[in-house]
């Protein structure tokens, strides 16, 4: 990595270095860089702007039905009127409870499966030489853009009818293979290009010496992958796992096509709740908040990996 040389004229920066050095612990100062008043105010403004819409929804979710339709949520500050009735109604709905479980049952395997498969492929792209490697890798990268909408119809017919050659089946389809199977497979497929791309960026940055040393010690690719690459990439994998989990959790499109009836995840149930002539529209804010809860817990639990790790091989480049 090449860091741009910092050879700026001291004169232009006002106070000289000597003066600063006198004040002692430079490290502390450096670490506190940019926490000036302006920066604090700017970050507070961003935080506020980004939070107000959600905050409005939160307040709305706590208001009685007739108030939601009658007036803006900010009027709650002049006319104090809260209720948890919406939450009670939502949670009492058996569909909501079962679709939260469905969401978990869909999201966990749909996070683990593509991550493992992608890290295998990313390792091969990073550390095994073969002809056409760069070309294939760029191809996989480019597949990110394939609009999911285009792939849905062919996949659906493959899953329901299988694959036949001259009338004889090579693949019998997933009919009767459990409600979640096709959702898992669909999510795994669509996650792969981005997952391979991001994990590859990280896996290539493992120092060559580390890999070579293991090779000299007699480790094959299986051991190098399992004993060296995997532990070193845990932060990257965890970061991507968070995003993948969120994307699957919040997905509606795949759910609409592949997760039918009893397997319906929370997004689909919520969307259907709005669809019923809008009569239940007042329950949506509460429902949306309940569905946010688990992703936020996941983020909190895995947040430290973001700090330790770097999603995209940050410093080198």
């Amino acid at each position, binding site marked *: 990595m090449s860091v741009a040389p910092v050879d700026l004229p001291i004169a232009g920066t006002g*106070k000289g270095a000597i003066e600063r050095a006198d004040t002692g612990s430079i490290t502390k100062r450096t670490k506190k860089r*940019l926490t000036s008043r302006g920066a604090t105010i700017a970050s507070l403004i961003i935080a506020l702007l980004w939070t107000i819409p959600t905050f409005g929804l939160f307040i709305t979710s706590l208001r009685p039905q007739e108030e939601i339709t009658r007036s803006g949520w900010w009027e709650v500050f002049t006319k104090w009127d809260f209720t948890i009735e919406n939450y009670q109604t939502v949670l009492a709905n058996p569909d909501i409870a079962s679709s939260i479980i469905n969401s978990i049952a869909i999201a966990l395997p749909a996070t683990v499966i593509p991550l493992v498969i992608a890290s295998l492929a990313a390792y091969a792209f990073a550390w095994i030489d073969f002809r056409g490697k760069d070309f294939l890798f760029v191809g996989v990268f480019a597949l990110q*853009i394939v609009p999911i909408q285009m792939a849905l*119809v062919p996949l659906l017919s493959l899953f329901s009818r299988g694959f036949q050659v001259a009338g004889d089946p090579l693949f019998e389809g997933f009919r009767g293979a459990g409600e979640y199977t096709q959702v898992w497979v669909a999510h795994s497929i669509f996650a792969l290009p981005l997952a391979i791309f991001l994990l590859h960026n990280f896996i290539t940055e493992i120092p060559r010496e580390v890999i070579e040393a293991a090779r000299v010690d007699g480790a094959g690719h299986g051991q190098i992958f399992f004993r060296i690459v995997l532990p070193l990439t845990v932060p990257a994998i965890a970061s991507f796992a968070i995003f993948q989990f969120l994307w699957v959790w919040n*997905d509606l499109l795949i759910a609409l096509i592949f997760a039918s009836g009893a397997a319906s995840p929370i997004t689909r149930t919520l969307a259907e709740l709005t669809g019923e002539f809008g009569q239940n529209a007042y329950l949506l804010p509460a429902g949306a908040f309940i569905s946010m809860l688990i992703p936020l817990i996941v983020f909190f639990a895995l947040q430290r990996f973001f700090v330790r790790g770097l999603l995209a091989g940050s410093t080198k480049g």
Partner: protein
Amino acid sequence: MLKDLLGWIGGFPPLVQIPVVILAFLVVIALVLFFVEIAPRSGRNYTIIRLVVAVAVPALALLALGSIWWGIAIAAVVGGLFFLLDYRSREGKGYILQLVGFLAPAFILVIIGLVYPTIQTIIASFQSSRGAFIGFDNFAWIFSQPENLVTIRNTIIWVLVVPVVSTIAGLAYAVFIDRSRGEKVFKILVFMPMAISFVGASIIWRFVYGYRGEGSQYGIINGIIVALGGDPVNLLQQVPLNTFLLIVVLIWVQTGFAMVVLSAAIKNVPAEQLEAAEIDGTNSFQRFWNVTLPGIRSSLVVVLTTISIASLKVFDIVRTMGTAYPDTGVIANDMVTLLQKFETGRSSAFAVLLFLLVMPIVIYNARQIKKQREIR
């Protein structure tokens, strides 16, 4: 076979299915890794193992998928050919089989789920919706309709504005809150939109942009306008403002992604470099511009790329919030609308256009990857 197994597992309660399926999957992967590890070893026993695995795995896989007998037989023969190819490989025995072990799972899934539909789409873009070959007619149709040109213009606006604004906002925020008190809470606040589905987001923004002709407003922007003595405006009805209002929603979502990734990158910039720069008497902005920014360059590229692709594919926001309003169309949404009207040809032509729009990003990244390889 596999279907029955999955069907049997599918009979379990959902929360039991999770560990069972994940464990079963990991066992399979562990077997693959174990085989990959022993594949290059020399000796007669290992040769036999390689032969057996090369022939049996494809055959068993097809058997599990419920294939007819001749399909299984062909798979076994192909496996045998792979063994022979591998046996004579210049890179040493086991080399090709290792490669297959690492890449086959991903490639099979990607070919079935992405490559095959892509090829199908490209072919369909040169056909009428009845399947007759009509050359470039679908593309000519796209460029002859004024509303399609609006759609294309909108898509370009999305892909230019969203990545730039959300990356700058996310980067600024990440820098400002870096090592400040309450950093975690600050992060959560901006990250929160990522945890909200588009269904939820469309509800949230209804309470921001909402409009009522008279009486009490429920959208906060109109609430403010009325409080200041103005007349309420039907915001999403205003062209071209409405496209930008929808863009704000995606920026609101993607900033959290940019912020989280860039924050991690910033923390990895070596402190010594920053100290050295400080000793040289630079101010904090110069340090940011000359040390931090070059240090997080590759992360910036990844963030910009990922968000660009996400904004090219934007669909949910326009679908849930914009369809009732004029001139808000984007390619990804029009594609679905056309598909629902059974206009597969025109829909596919739009998809191909989307591929073409993403080409510059792909080429840039390809060159980036190549450069990285050369450095190593």
